[in-house]
């Protein structure tokens, strides 16, 4: 009984304490810190923390320190809405970022729009987030339908790369269907036969039956889309075990770009392409310095999530520096929004400037980074490392094509 009384009072105390205007500039970030997406929340937490530490060590923003408030939404939409409300009304953050998955980001975007708080999307990729005309929502990273741009460029320009046929296997989530549709639309426009079009439920335990079916169609290219890392790993493992030998394995989605691919698949990951996981131009010395520093601090090499999280803080800091802050929260939030509209800078992620333009599937974007189409890259797994191979300007090494296994 005491627990109940105490918790009610604890809650009341928390709810009713409205902190006086805090000195630091507060950034809110709903992220999955527990639940199935917890590893991603952790990546962003590290990246945000590192950027904020650097900015504060260099004197903060116009003399004020930055502070990040991360709230756990457990990858649940209703909870994402709850913590967003809390960040805006209780924690009095100036600007929001984060979200991780598109479903939760939709709730955050919808509430930010209503409560007039800028939301700068760092990772969620559903086209819809910036295609609803929300003037308070901005996005630095490319949308899902832009993800396959580098792949598209590769098959069109690399000699002999044009597929004779392609099998497309994608998960039936928002992410999987968007990318599956974009890829197939572009391939069909080039006259490539789609010999298999398979959607699977996320977190499938066994892909062998699907891969058996795909093997029967003898595809020239095998295109795999996975929002979940585990699906990405198992898709690749089972496709190889079943003995599918296309000229290229191409994975779309974050799962194909994480270190787990190499540690868990070992030699099976060799020569698999990962299209999408844009993580800055690795040939840029500033990006290299960031990679080295991050690796030194946390013992892991940063990838798309860390680069996105780290860059977003710099974009926010830049906007805060230019915004005229008065201490009136509503006015300050609008000032930050206006400052974001005038953003024109380069981070380790790449160039950023927000604008309104039409995407590849015909959606009209609002405040979407206009450089997004350049932020698509094809990388390839080589000896346990993911190296950028296309487009050539971002390439770290030459590419291996066709897959040597296909020639056996």
């Amino acid at each position, binding site marked *: 009984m005491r627990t109940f009384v105490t918790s009610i009072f604890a809650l009341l105390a928390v709810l009713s304490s409205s902190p006086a205007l805090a000195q630091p500039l507060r950034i809110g970030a709903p992220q999955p810190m527990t639940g199935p997406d917890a590893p991603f929340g952790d990546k962003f937490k590290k990246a945000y923390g590192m950027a904020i530490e650097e900015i504060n060590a260099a004197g903060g923003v116009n003399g004020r320190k930055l502070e990040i408030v991360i709230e756990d939404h457990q990858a649940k939409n209703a909870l994402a809405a709850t913590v967003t409300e809390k960040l805006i009304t209780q924690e009095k953050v100036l600007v929001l970022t984060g979200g991780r998955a598109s479903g939760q980001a939709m709730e955050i975007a919808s509430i930010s729009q209503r409560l007039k708080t800028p939301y700068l999307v760092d990772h969620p990729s559903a086209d819809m987030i910036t295609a609803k005309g929300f003037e308070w929502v901005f996005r630095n990273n490319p949308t899902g339908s832009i993800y396959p741009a580098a792949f598209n460029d590769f098959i069109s320009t690399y000699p002999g790369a044009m597929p004779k046929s392609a099998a497309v296997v994608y998960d039936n989530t928002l992410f999987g269907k968007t990318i599956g549709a974009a890829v197939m639309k572009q391939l069909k426009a080039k006259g490539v036969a789609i010999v298999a079009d398979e959607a*699977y439920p996320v977190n499938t335990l066994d892909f062998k039956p699907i891969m058996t079916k795909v093997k029967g169609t003898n595809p020239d290219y095998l295109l795999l889309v996975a929002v979940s890392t585990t699906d990405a790993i198992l898709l690749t493992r089972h496709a190889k075990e079943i003995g599918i030998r296309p000229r290229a394995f191409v994975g779309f989605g974050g799962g194909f770009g994480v270190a787990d691919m190499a540690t868990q698949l070992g030699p099976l990951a060799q020569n698999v392409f990962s299209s999408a996981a844009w993580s800055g131009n690795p040939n840029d010395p500033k990006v290299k310095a960031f990679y080295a520093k991050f690796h030194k601090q946390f013992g892991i090499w940063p990838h798309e999530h860390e680069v996105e999280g780290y860059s977003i803080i710099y974009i926010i800091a830049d906007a805060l520096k230019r915004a005229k802050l008065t201490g009136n929260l509503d006015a300050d939030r609008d000032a930050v929004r206006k400052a974001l509209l005038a953003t024109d800078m380069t981070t380790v992620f790449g160039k950023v400037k927000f604008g309104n333009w039409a995407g590849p599937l015909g959606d009209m974007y609002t405040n979407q980074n206009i450089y997004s189409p350049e932020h698509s890259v094809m990388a390839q797994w080589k000896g346990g490392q993911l190296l950028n191979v296309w487009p050539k300007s971002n390439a770290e090494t030459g590419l291996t094509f066709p897959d040597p296994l296909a020639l056996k």
Partner: protein
Amino acid sequence: METFAQSLTSGVLTGALYAMIGIGLTVVFGVMRIINLAHGEMVMLGMFGAFWGQALWKLDPFLSLVLWVPLMFLGGMLLYRLLLRKIIPGGELNTLLYTAGLSLLIANLALFFWTGDYRTINLSYGQEPVRPFGISIAVPLAVAFVVALAITGALWLFLSRTDMGRAIRATSQNGEAAILMGVDVERVAMITFGLGTALAGAAGVLLAPSLYLYPTVGELLIVKCFVIVVLGGLGSVPGAIAGGILLGVVESLGAVYVSSTYKDGIGFVLFLAVLLYRPSGLFGVGK
């Protein structure tokens, strides 16, 4: 034809592992009439056991069964003795919710200590699948299949040849009669719960090399597990085996010949259909 043979083989192999998970749940239900919602977490613990065995002590995952099965057996008995025993008289629903709480507790403790990272186990052997008759069979899955058969055989011997096994079967068939016959129901329940936990753990150890593992993997497994045990008839061990293999095969063939999107749906429709025509499952032992 090759496609059919391949999907049938994968179906039977994964089905046997599904069956392993189901047997533990069904044995416990048979004796205690409780559905243990934390069963999936016990499988998860077995998976992590195999993982840590390899990561820390370079223990072969399949050999680590010798270590984890007895430990899980003891753990299950303690769990029953210290926690569940006082809850069961409160009724079916209370026990169900209690185990739901337990499942949250175990999964989140695991998340806290081991983080949510996805892990898989790489065996030093069997990177290349074996290919009898052109059918690809992954080595870890094949080994797990054989071990699962052996464990099931041992369980059958235990249940049919030992006094304790007979007492468990008697309690499962008719609890009141078993009491009248002088069976120490309390002790039977404790051992059965230990047995169920050990079987879940064993299933986890066997699954680990073929699957990825993470602290909340139990959620994914428990729903399948329900389908299996109900297909076979709650409380029936042969039923769980048949249910597991049936589900494995139906999912596998369904994904190839019907639709991979509705793969899981096929399992559920089959489940409802069986329930309607045989409400107590294929091998049902009473209502």
